[in-house]
């Protein structure tokens, strides 16, 4: 078995799933799954005009590396990469990108899903939504549970 390549990044720069995929995959990988989370134009019925992500950057890089490494141990993959954006994002921009490359598709899907679910549960990252009426709100729907800490 290959030792999987692991990449984890917290960045204020625009994300590009295709670029991360090209960087990570090799010709041993028959399957590549790219997940992109993008800024939606509404949340629970309220029109959103802009988002701002704030990270506990130093810890977030460490947690994201841990998450990607866990996926790399749990599934037979060649590479797992995850990048999360910070700062102000416009509608439609990618807030998170996860790439999993594997010889076979089941492992690529499973690793990809594992990473995004873990990001949602425990990446120290917060989101401030800005609405059409100018008001803002900190989103924080997922208290970090004991088992995820």
């Amino acid at each position: 078995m290959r030792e999987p390549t692991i990449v984890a990044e917290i960045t204020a720069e625009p994300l590009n799933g295709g670029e991360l995929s090209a960087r990570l995959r090799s010709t041993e990988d028959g399957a590549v799954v790219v997940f992109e989370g993008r800024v939606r134009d509404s949340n629970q019925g309220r029109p959103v005009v802009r988002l701002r992500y704030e990270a506990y950057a130093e810890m977030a890089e460490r947690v994201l590396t841990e998450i990607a490494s866990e996926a790399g141990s749990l599934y037979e993959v060649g590479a797992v990469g995850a990048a999360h954006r910070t700062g102000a994002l416009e509608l439609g921009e990618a807030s998170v990108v996860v790439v999993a490359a594997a010889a076979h598709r089941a492992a690529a899907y499973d690793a990809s899903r594992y990473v995004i679910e873990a990001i949602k549960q425990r990446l120290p990252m917060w989101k401030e939504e800005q609405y059409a009426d100018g008001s803002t709100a900190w989103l924080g729907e997922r208290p970090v549970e004991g088992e995820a800490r």
Partner: protein
Amino acid sequence: MLLFGVYREFAGQAELGLELPAGSTLAHLVSELRSRSGFDRLPDRPAVARNLTYASLDELVEAGDEVALIPPVAGG
């Protein structure tokens, strides 16, 4: 200690100095904080990180530790 997101708004600032007696745990730190104005909305048992890792509230706080309060997360 470090504050993020909505917890930072409780304090009106991102960093806060706290004086704690030797032998204090993270739980002591949280209860000290909850007695301050603005922090009544802080949960009983918030998630806390010590030195960049999620920590149990039973853990002792030591001099020089980087402690952060972690509000419910919203990455992804």
